[in-house]
């Protein structure tokens, strides 16, 4: 089941510092469970980040990205209230999109 991400987008000047935490097992396909059975490969393959609908980062991941992944990026030309949207899709076709508004600098 695709669980919500935690996205923080904070303005630093005209740049939005975007930090995303995902809940995902990122199984490598080599790990064995407690019964000794191989856990099938299950990982996020694609991550895309948009700024007010425009793609600013398009990521491809392997299974070697850590479990419960983290992604940080910096979006140019951002203003408070701008929409940052993140979508991921995994190798089983599961997908999820979450969106936040850019917060003004602290």
């Amino acid at each position, binding site marked *: 089941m695709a669980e919500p991400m935690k996205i923080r987008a904070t303005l630093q000047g005209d740049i939005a510092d975007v930090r995303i935490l995902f809940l995902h097992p990122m199984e*490598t396909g080599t790990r064995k469970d407690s019964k000794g059975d191989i856990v099938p490969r299950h990982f996020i393959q694609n991550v895309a980040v948009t700024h007010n609908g425009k793609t600013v980062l398009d*990521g*491809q991941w392997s299974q070697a*990205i*850590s479990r419960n992944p*983290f992604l940080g990026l910096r*979006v*140019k030309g951002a203003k408070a209230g701008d929409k940052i949207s993140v979508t*991921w899709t995994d190798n089983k076709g599961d997908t999820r999109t979450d969106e936040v508004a850019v917060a003004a600098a602290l």
Partner: protein
Amino acid sequence: MIDPSRRTILKYAGAFGAFTMGLVTGLVKSSNAVAAQWNKVGFESKAMADALKALGAGNPVESKDILITAPDIAENGAVVPVAVVSKLPHTQQISIIAEKNPRPLMATFDVSSGSEGYVSTRIKMGETSNVWAVVKADGNFFAAKKEVKITVGGCG
């Protein structure tokens, strides 16, 4: 901006759009949200040289304009933080490679002009190894490396 394969998708979508406008919007939108592309050959390469080839980056130039932030020693190889800054003009793509991993290529980020040449993520590393950042800028490939030592944690 964006790399050639991506452009192909967009072009394809455009051609398709001649038939139905509505569907095109859908296609473009979904390719915007999540690119359908996934560099299977690159990600399944077992040697760094093959992964570079699959990126189209056969022989990248080592550049001091790429900065890698990662720990000298990682306490936990399953979660090694790596941040890459590319100060190269027209940075289009940043890839992260752990040289000694069974499958060295870990991530590729196409960065548009709307984001800075910066990505930060966390990777799994099986053993002490160089971590490479391979950057495509203005159509050319550059690289930088940093060694990360992996230790066994706790009481062993």
